[in-house]
């Protein structure tokens, strides 16, 4: 429990308009985009690194957990206070501190919204490459914590490939900077270690990112299939023919219909699956690849291949893709999205397994995912008001992730382990490896105050206790 004294001290740091502590306000911070819930005792909104340091020092003095949070769009429970305590909301640290096009860099505070950075530089023909579907809302601090991806990671890599430096606050309240605008600095790559550490080791207060030059030409294609297998096999065939799209997204029939009803993007309602393929680069390369892609899709039994004629058509197709999760809300009260990864050649059998798993549990599972890099997003539809439905959805999700592991894949490609998949980590990593990750966590956070109960097994199952046992403040509905 957070003492009244600690609360007073926190309030003094951020001022009367800088915190929330009423139950009706705290409710909004008990969840993210995933299915888990845990309510904070207080939410504070620092305006500066100094504020963050002061908050962290109070946490140290009184021994309560702290959890960093950007926009709360995460899908693995990364930004909810599993063991109670205080949420540090970064929404007021939302300034782009510097845009340095001559050096292809920007320096930002963690609360800057992902898309706002691209908007700030697109007039000069630059962009920030990581583009999670939530990019209109999600923050760069959250992107760094989760090492976020997006459709275009196929060509440009995930967040870690675009982060060159960090300023961060340790759980002891020390401030460090690591990396910088310069590439390939000597010494251990702390930036690389901390990016994707899911807010369990430090709180990031400044980020140096890479900006990229916009391509000359972009072409977006929609390939329509009567068979999911044919659609999936096209992905492997594109790779085999050495064609290099910047994004290859797949939507199955269930998803198509939900998306089409919500966005009217022009997706065919009767298809079994479609591929949304984007090509970027010099016009000479893109125009040739459009024809190569058309040829591959038709060779793999696509019934039709459409090329977006202009920017509006292209934006409409992407709107359908990026707003897909919202579209699900029209059909199902809620859903549970998974994030397993498989080698690209295993997409077709993995989709078959997902279909069988849905049938086994009597659940509808739709698929919309980054096919180009094998990053599956099965969306399991369920009704939390039906007793047992959430548990069934979670079991189905776990079986799908175990299948991904069995074909050489991983349990998360971009959403993070969060609190959702902690107990699956031992399926993927050995005891020794998990122990080593824990030692790194403890090196930075020996008292376990920073985002406890995330990323590493908690020992709730049959495993040995790995983190302090869950406290009473954790609520899982």
């Amino acid at each position: 429990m957070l003492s009244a004294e600690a609360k007073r001290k926190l309030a003094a740091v951020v001022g009367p308009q800088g915190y929330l502590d009423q139950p009706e306000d705290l409710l909004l911070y008990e969840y993210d985009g995933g299915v888990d819930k845990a309510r904070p005792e207080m939410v504070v909104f620092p305006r500066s690194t100094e504020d963050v340091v002061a908050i962290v020092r109070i946490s140290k003095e009184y021994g309560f957990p702290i959890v960093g949070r950007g926009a709360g769009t995460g899908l693995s429970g990364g930004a909810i206070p599993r063991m109670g305590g205080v949420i540090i909301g970064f929404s007021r640290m939302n300034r782009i501190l510097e845009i340095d096009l001559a050096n292809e860099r920007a320096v930002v505070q963690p609360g800057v919204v992902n898309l706002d950075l691209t908007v700030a530089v697109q007039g000069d023909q630059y962009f920030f490459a990581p583009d999670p579907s939530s990019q209109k809302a999600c923050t760069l601090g959250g992107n760094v914590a989760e090492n976020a991806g997006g459709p275009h990671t196929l060509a440009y890599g995930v967040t870690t490939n675009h982060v060159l430096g960090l300023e961060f606050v340790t759980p002891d309240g020390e401030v460090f900077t690591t990396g910088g605008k310069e590439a390939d600095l000597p010494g251990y790559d702390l930036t690389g270690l901390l990016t994707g550490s899911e807010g369990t080791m430090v709180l990031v207060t400044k980020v140096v990112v890479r900006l990229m030059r916009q391509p000359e030409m972009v072409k977006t294609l929609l390939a329509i299939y009567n068979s999911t297998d044919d659609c999936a096999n096209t992905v492997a065939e594109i790779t085999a023919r050495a064609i290099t799209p910047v994004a290859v997204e797949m939507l199955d029939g269930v998803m198509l219909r939900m998306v089409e009803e919500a966005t009217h993007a022009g997706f065919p309602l009767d298809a079994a699956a479609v591929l949304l393929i984007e090509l970027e680069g010099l016009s000479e390369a893109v125009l040739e690849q459009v024809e190569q892609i058309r040829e591959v899709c038709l060779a793999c039994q696509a019934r039709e291949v459409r090329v977006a004629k202009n920017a509006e058509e292209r934006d409409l197709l992407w709107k359908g893709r990026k707003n897909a999760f919202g579209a699900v809300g029209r059909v199902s009260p809620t859903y549970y999205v998974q994030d397993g990864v498989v080698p690209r050649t295993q997409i077709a059998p993995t989709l078959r397994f997902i279909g069988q798993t849905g049938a086994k549990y009597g659940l509808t599972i739709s698929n919309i995912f980054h096919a180009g890099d094998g990053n599956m997003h099965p969306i399991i539809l369920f009704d939390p008001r039906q007793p047992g439905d959430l548990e069934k959805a979670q079991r189905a999700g776990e079986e799908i992730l175990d299948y991904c592991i069995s074909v050489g894949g991983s349990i998360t490609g971009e959403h993070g382990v969060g609190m959702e998949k902690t107990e699956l980590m031992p399926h993927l990593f050995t005891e020794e490896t998990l122990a080593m990750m824990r030692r790194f966590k403890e090196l930075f956070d020996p008292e376990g105050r920073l985002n406890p109960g995330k990323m590493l097994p908690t020992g709730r199952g049959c495993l040995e206790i790995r983190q302090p046992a869950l406290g009473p403040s954790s609520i899982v509905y």
Partner: protein
Amino acid sequence: MLPPQTVSPDSPEEFAAALRAASDQRRTIALFGRGTKHRMAGAVPAAEVNLSTARLTRVLQYEPRDLTLSVEAGIRFAEVDQLLGEHRQMLPLDPPFAGEATVGGVLASNTCGPRRRLYGTARDLTIGMKFATLEGKLIQSGGMVVKNVAGLDMAKLLIGSFGTLGAIVVANFKVLPRPQVERHFLLSFDLAADARAARDRVLRSVLQPQSLDLLNPAAAARMGKSGFLLSIQAGGNRAVVDRYQRELAALGPLSEVDPNWTARLREFTPAFLEEHPEGAVVRLCSTLETAPALLESPAPAVIRAGSGVAYLYFAEASAAAAVLSQPKAILEFSPTSRSFTAELWPSPGADFEIMQRVKRMLDPHHLLNRGRLFGRT
């Protein structure tokens, strides 16, 4: 080149056991692959145990249709290059010493070359790793899929750690299809400012060359050329590469060079070191904006002008002092003689304190590759 009584275990498990045995007896350990970079990042003084990955040479998995590769750390980079080439694929790191260097050594030193502009470094292309610790444990980071955020990305720490934290024993990569056509162009200028301006125009254009290097006249002379050079490698289909030729020709006097040019540029450092046993190489991490100023250096300068990393070559190591005093400079390759005592990494940042904590956690008795990491560990 290799120290006497070098032990080369046959498997990652045996490698981990050998590390543990040495550590249990508190014996100092020199860790290396084939020893190509013994002058790099500070020499390791004679150690009590010499451990090499040279016999960890298996290809564990290569699935061209998945564009992924898993190899043991002691395999030669050249062998990997050849294997991938048979499938028209590539791991475009361009490390120096490419003929003999091992994959593990390339990662531990985070060496790369001209194509760094387009494809990044080992940091960007490594998707998984197994490393052995002094406790004899094999630790896994990442896996065999191209996108994976499960757990801490510990591989990032090992890349560029020069064997001071543990031993990389297995590395997994994402590989890329090789472009249909690759061509190599040179723009040569009388003035550094003109070379820089041409580089700026390429950076601001829609062109995405694989490499973009600036050489000053002293470096150009070593390559048998004259003037300030902007060296560009371009890949793609024929029409794309023809366009590079057209657009680059508009920037200045353009010539085309044979593919061997880039290989020689990649091996610029090894060739210099061989000629100059008492010479030294300074690496300066600078920005795109500030790097071209180094073209004025009287010493040969090769600048990765698309990333801002510059290499300066000194026949006499003592002449390196001035440039080494700049922030973010390191003496990357030292003279052979042990009498050389300059600071190799004069100005590490405040975060070095955290690096030391990491080092102490993994090597509390300071046994691994003493003196490496530029004399700082």
